[in-house]
């Protein structure tokens, strides 16, 4: 067939194929990632962090909601659910991280979950995970399953976008990892002693604002 994804002479198909085949490693990871993002974002959006104790049923409900858009038959559905439950349970058991998040949200005037924005410098539509808008600053929280999933390029673009959208607000950036649970500040603008990212172990994260 001449309809190829990469050949030179044949017509190229500019097509994204959706891999939701949960028997493949990639498909499984994609859906798991979606559930985790959805659950944590919804916790933040609905201020469930202020609750004293996290009920297992809340976690189960969020996982179930996150999966609603995937009709059955979805192979490995129960395996995905159980993996998501484990990771989220561990995450919410970590009171230290949960408390840090709660504190981060205390002064929030508005919380934006996955807002879509056009970034004119790169002529792209971007969708950062969470923006916490305070009176005097904007906080970007980027969620990743593991610290190694984090890429400097992605966050750099988000920061440039936010500088365009909120030119008068200093920006703070946090990386929220799920496994293991951690909240790390990557950037804090607007203070004299601008705080740089705490160096993470992954080699691609070293030179963000250096």
């Amino acid at each position, binding site marked *: 067939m001449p*309809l*190829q994804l990469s050949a030179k002479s044949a*017509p190229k198909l500019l097509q994204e194929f959706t891999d939701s085949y949960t028997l493949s490693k990639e498909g499984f990871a994609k859906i798991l990632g979606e559930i985790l993002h959805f659950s944590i974002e919804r916790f933040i959006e609905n201020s469930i962090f202020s609750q004293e104790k996290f009920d297992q049923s809340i976690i189960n409900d969020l996982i179930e909601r996150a999966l609603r858009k995937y*009709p059955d038959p979805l*192979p490995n559905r129960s395996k995905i659910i159980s993996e998501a439950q484990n990771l989220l349970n561990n995450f919410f058991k970590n009171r230290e991280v949960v408390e840090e998040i709660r504190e981060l949200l205390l002064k929030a005037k508005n919380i934006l979950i996955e807002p879509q*924005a056009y970034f*004119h*410098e790169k002529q792209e539509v971007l969708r950062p995970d969470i923006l916490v808008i305070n009176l005097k600053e904007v906080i970007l929280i980027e969620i990743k399953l593991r610290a190694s999933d984090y890429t400097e390029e992605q966050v750099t673009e988000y920061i440039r976008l936010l500088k365009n959208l909120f030119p008068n607000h200093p920006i703070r950036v946090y990386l929220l990892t799920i496994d293991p649970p951690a909240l790390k500040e990557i950037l804090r603008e607007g203070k004299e002693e601008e705080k740089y990212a705490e160096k993470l172990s992954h080699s691609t994260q070293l030179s963000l604002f250096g």
Partner: protein
Amino acid sequence: MLRSYLIPPSSHFLDSLSRLYFRDLEEKKYNPLEVAFVFPTGRACLYFTRRLIQNKSSESFFLPKIFSWEEFINFCGERLIDVSYKLLTNAGFELLLLRTLKELGLNFKDPEEDVYWTRHYLQVFEELEKEGLTSKDLKIPPEGLPNKAQEFLENLTTVYEHFKSRSASLNYLFEAQLLHKIAEKLQEADPYKKLKTSSFYFCGFGALRKSESNLLRAFVELAKIDNLDTTFVFAWDAEKAEPHPILQRTFKDLGLTAERLILDASIESSKKLPSVIISETSDVHEEVELVCSNLKKDVDGLSAESLPEKIALIVPREETLVPLIHALEEVVEEGEHSPLQETNIAQSFPLYHHPINILLLNIIKLQKERVDDKYPVAKYLEILTQPLLKLLFPFLPQLLEVLSKVLQNKYGRVSLDEVEALIGVSEGSFLQAELSKIHDLFFRNWENVDEPAKIAQAIEEVLRLLLPLLPKDDAELIAYLTYFQTEVLPLFLQNELWEGLKDRRYPFYQLRKLLERAKYYLSGKPLKGLQILGFLETRLLNFKKAYLLDLNEGVLPPREDFNPLLTDEMRSYFGLPVFTSSLWDYYFLTFLESVDELFISYIGVEGEDSANEPSRFIYRLRYEFAKSGQSLSKETPLRSFPQRNFQEGIPVTDEHRELILSYLKNTQLSRSFFETYLRCPAKFYFKYLLKIKEEEGDAAFLGNITHEILAELLIPWIKTNDFIDFGEVTQNVDETVNKVWELKGVAKKFDPLLNLMVKMLIQGFLKKYFQTLSEQGIKRRVLGIEDEVIADLTINGYEGLSTVKLYGRCDLRMEEEASGSLNYLILDLKTSASAGLKSKSFQKFLDIKIDDFKPSQTSYEYQKKLEDWKSHFGSNLNNFQLTFYLWLEIEKRNLTNSDYSYIKPTLIKITSKDEPEESLSINKAEIFKINKFSNLLRQMIVHRLTTPYFYFTEKDNNCDWCSYYSICLSYRLSSS
């Protein structure tokens, strides 16, 4: 706040909408992140986002939420519904319904019928859900439906309740049920707040089902009490005409009154209809070549980024996609940089013809034919000749050659162990081991599938071995695998859906159904490059120029799949809306206003049997143009396109020629040997060179039976010199039919109803036929019944070939006294409804000269020669068989010197209502004119000995009932 606007499609709908949005942001101080736009298609979402960006491209900004309808429903479901639920694919619901039917004892005996009917049953339930209707038992179901389908309708309420509770117990909801739940929730006081959206824009909706309009109605009510701002925007130019009936119905359903909205006065010109060129083409290849050659001029100087709003190819018939892509490839020269090299498709990509799909379908077909451990030899060999197998097993050609020799003509059915033992003895252990691997992969793995998951394993095993051998960047392959991995395999891995369906045939038939429907919807993301769209995807979009292909009836508007349970009468009984073409009319009219230039092509009428008919929209277009006083151009494509350079046939090798020569030297040639080649050289290759036996279908079986009855009835008259007493023959019909019926076990072959009907048809025809002959006082004597005639044909020494033997066996030979003259009749009985003679063609044939045919000509000339020859015998080779018999009779029976005034090759047509006989006629003085047939047969022999290809037939309807259809398809696909 509730608003409702009509935006003229000609004012660039999405552009106007984006202006409305920016105006609202400014005037009403909306927060963009609390605004949501909902569109009927994902495509409109992409274009709207692009439009917002283009209108404000110099700065960064937050975008509103932009949903397709499907995304919007998921969003509302997830936010509003507090009880857990899951959605299920239609294939999954079909399994649950199958189980329900079994539990209620409403299933057929044959799982194949169950699988067929369940799909139709499910559609009934879906339709009822969409309209929010409760089911009603049908006390008197329509006649003509099978008993079980009638019982289903008689017990509709029970089945529905049982099925719904089964689905609910597993937490499954129909989409319509979900819509209903969302609408209910929105009627409560506060839940709408969970949507975190203060303003909704519903754009371009129309012709809503009850479940949809109820949901949108909830947003109308929320706006009326000022909980939300809701804006409806429809595509229509109210200045030009009253809103279309489709829109009027929508306004009524939602309780709206819409006003015309124009935001930019400069756009509001009295826009006329687009400039339109209509072009009739003869086939899909010509059509796509024509479109692509025009397209090449249009894209000159354009970039891939700018193409999406400039040019669109609209392809309502998904089968046209593949030839279109071939043609696009042709139009771009090697090394040239053209925006046409980057395409983006938003349409279902048909995958039925993918070689892996064909291979899997053949495996299923073969399993259906297996009796215990034995397979029919012809089918067994057919699997082994699939081209994909050659990739896996390099020794396959050698193995096939041996197998053909060993099995052909010796076995009707054969077990795998038997074949392996035979090969072991004749060829040794290496080939035996290779064969055993093939058997495991394509036969044994499929034999013992006692649970659905094993089918998935058998498929995965085939894919595991095949995929490394196929190109990784082949988009069609990726689409096929994605379809497989998301739609097919998961179904067989979810055991709970198969509970209660123990019969191993269920998974097989379900798999076959999924393979037969195989297609993958390409979403057209990201928005860049040449846009190829389905027609519905064009809704709300504007293009500077659009090419609309295949504007044929049945394509646009599309022909709906017929469901015998949802006829117009049944729909009206259930209270379901009866769809007319008005919805498509609305789409077409708005589309017309959304383009500046339109190039329309359709496939013209080929012949009296042609199924191609120009769409009703072409007539509508003419009407619209006539009404507005504009002119409509017509373009006739040039007929001199360069030859397509992909293979048009199976390449002929020296080995093939050897085989043909050997056949010519050693076998008597029948008319079928010639006719098959004329009809389709590829079929000749499969039948005479690969020696794959043709399937004997019910029609052929019926033909044999009828011949037998006719012979039985007339045998007594062959021994006498008397004229036949047709009255007596008429009286013998019933008894003879019964006798042959019993002797041949016909009743076992057909189901009871068919058996009765076929028997009645044959009895009825024969009685009427002989009775008519009797009443007309026809005087005939029988000269011979099915006797064989053999004649020599001299060949001019090609490759040492001096003569070949030709043979024929016509059903009846008779002589007839009529008006004082004696005529000679060569009669052939036909059961096919399409049989018929072409007397004009025959008269023409008598008078023409057969041109010489010289080998070593171009491929085009070889093909053309076949076409020329065919044209002498009628469009369906109607006269060939009887001309062949006529030639044989003349050669062998010295008819030139006989007392017969006329020779009459005659057809007896069993399915004819009026004239049971149809004759050609040649008087004695003209008999010499048949000599040219020898010349033609000679040329046909040389043709096949020198042709570069066994060409695929150009006439697609030749393939309809062809036994070699699937194998041929694999060859076509692999060679292109």
